[in-house]
């Protein structure tokens, strides 16, 4: 397929294509991590890499997250461009020492003489009954630490373009990929460049801005579709890059709509939604019709059982109810609406 090709593909295939294109372009790129070369290929996102590039450039590791992250850093410092994959973001907590004490600091402590072209890919979010240790997002924690870049692609195009941008960046970049997004199909233009640090207005609207992260964009788009039926126009802004943050795109939208709901895929306390809320209050204080509202995970560990799990995660319904309160609207009758679940995930086209 030539570089300019445009085709429909799933998110998982966009991820593997992006890594494949970078591995073809630059022999210093390699991909590794627990389970990377096995038959399941990290939900299909490393498919074909072992076969095309061999075991030196695509390999599995022992259960040694801390050291393997240090190995990735060592290889990056020596000029390679490692892509270290984690099948659950929760496992990156075992490597936080390397991430927060070493990877994030070395450029600064070496006064810029060390480059760290390192990508950490991790799957986040929800399957079914994933419970408390396989369901986190952690972008608030990662983005809190200076020196790390953090992106959360929502569409197949962003999965493709942001992965390529991350691999080409000379700084450490963490890519957080929601598992439910893996099934989404969408158009991918192989030539399209999406730089790190740019938000995207996914839907134009005049009544309120919903700033969403990762899977919450899907929920926000659904909420916008439902509310549009009664004439309420939501503007949906996909933050895409948590660090660095595209403040301008977000603030411009809020200046226009004068109302903002942050729909984050993380806990709210000390989280990304709190940061955005503070930023918006500070910069748009005079324009806001009411304080910024926030949605996120319930302030508890993620429960396993479905009824509680459904309450744990924010959704299109919770977005709709929040917007109704913000606009002093009566509750919309949602009886005829179909919302997303594990069994009925959004599949695109996107």
């Amino acid at each position, binding site marked *: 397929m030539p570089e300019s090709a445009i085709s429909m593909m799933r998110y998982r295939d966009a991820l593997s294509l992006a890594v494949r294109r970078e591995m073809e372009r630059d022999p*210093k790129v*390699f991909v590794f991590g627990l389970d990377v070369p096995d038959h399941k290929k990290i939900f299909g996102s490393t498919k074909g890499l072992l076969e095309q590039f061999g075991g*030196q450039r695509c390999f599995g*590791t*022992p259960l*040694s997250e*801390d*050291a*393997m*992250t*240090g*190995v*990735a*850093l*060592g*290889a*990056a*410092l*020596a*000029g*390679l461009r*490692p892509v270290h994959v984690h099948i659950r973001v929760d496992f990156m907590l075992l490597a936080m*020492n*390397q991430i927060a*004490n*070493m990877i994030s600091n*070395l*450029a*600064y*402590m*070496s*006064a*810029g*003489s*060390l*480059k*760290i072209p390192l990508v950490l890919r991790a799957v986040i979010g929800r399957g079914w009954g994933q419970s408390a240790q396989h369901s986190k997002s952690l972008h608030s924690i990662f983005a809190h630490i*200076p*020196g790390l*870049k953090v992106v959360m692609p929502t569409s197949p195009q962003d999965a493709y373009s942001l992965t390529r941008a991350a691999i080409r960046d*000379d*700084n450490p970049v963490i890519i957080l990929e929601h598992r439910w997004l893996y099934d989404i199909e969408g158009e991918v233009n192989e030539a399209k460049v999406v730089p790190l640090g740019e938000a995207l207005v996914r839907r134009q609207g005049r009544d309120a801005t919903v700033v969403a992260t990762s899977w919450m964009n899907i929920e926000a788009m659904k909420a916008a579709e439902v509310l549009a039926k009664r004439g309420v126009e939501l503007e949906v802004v996909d933050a895409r890059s948590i660090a660095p943050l595209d403040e301008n795109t977000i603030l411009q939208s809020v200046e226009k709509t004068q109302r903002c709901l942050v729909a984050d895929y993380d806990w709210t306390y000390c989280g990304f939604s709190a940061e955005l809320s503070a930023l918006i209050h500070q910069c748009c204080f005079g324009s806001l019709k009411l304080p910024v509202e926030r949605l996120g995970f319930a302030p508890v560990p993620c429960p396993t059982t479905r009824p509680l799990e459904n309450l744990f995660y924010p959704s299109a319904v919770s977005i709709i109810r929040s917007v109704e309160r913000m606009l002093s609207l009566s509750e919309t009758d949602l009886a005829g609406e179909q919302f997303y679940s594990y069994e009925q995930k959004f599949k695109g086209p996107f």
Partner: protein
Amino acid sequence: MTAAVRSGQRSKLPMGYGRKKLTKEEGLKLYRQLLLARLCEEKIREEYFNDEMKTPVHLGIGGEAIAVGVCHCLAPGTRTFGTYRNHTLYLTKSGDVDGFFAELYGRATGPGKGKAGSMHLMNPQKGLVATSAVVATTVPLAVGDALAQSYLKTGAMSVAFFGDGAVEEGAFWESLNFACLKRLPVLFVCEDNDLAIHTARAQRRGFASLRNTVATYDCHAAEGDGASVTNVIRLTRQVMGRMAKDPKPGFIRLAYFRFLEHVGPREDFDAGYRPRPPEQLLRKMDPVVRFEKELVPLGLRERDLAPIRAELKALIDAGVAKAKAAPFPQAAELTTDVYV
């Protein structure tokens, strides 16, 4: 690719491998490196009380022979990784006295523009890639570097220096396992002073011999006295020779005596956790005293060494004066270098 990596391509076998005796020139070079580290740290001990050097200092007096001896055996530019007790390694790899003191005084002219301080002295261009104040964190980096050398087929090896406390961390064993699994060209150098801060080995370790335990992994393991430069060189060459013939990681445990407190410029024998050894033993454990004796068979005596001492003292005094006169970093430097 960096020059340091390229330089590794030139020498596939360790320098001086197979040779038994030091030449006179080698003896003088090694003495100069050993003494430079010692005199720089003695200078820190004098200056520290003026409270201008605002960085915690972990002095390596007693352990200088290890970095000096190991580095002597390495190809120029070999990429090494160290700890917060890194002064000898930094000075041996870089020879950069001015940068050393500038960094300790927090000046813009230091290698880290004052952002690094004593615990993070680095000189990637000269082959000290990274140092760290969190125990065992650079061990996997050396393994990753070795992975890169193997991947890029440079023929170079990588070296991890770490203390004996590091082997209590999972990252050490994870790194050793992975390096052995992949047969990576990495040399693990354990600088063993028997202490993790103030806790002796007997209170920390549930196995008898580190060397023997490491040797159950698929690598070349050795151990010995780390207070003697010639002994360090002999052991390092031995292990590197085995690595060259049978490509696997190498491991050397080198024992030394930490003369001073864990952090700071003072002796701390009055603290109660260890007795002051008798004077005769202290002299035996002092790498500078030991090496001066080892130089006698090479025909090098006090009259040859005294000028080196005087020259280094002048160099160090000049370095300190330059550092004190140098500017602190501008406020704008606060936000630079977060990303490259």
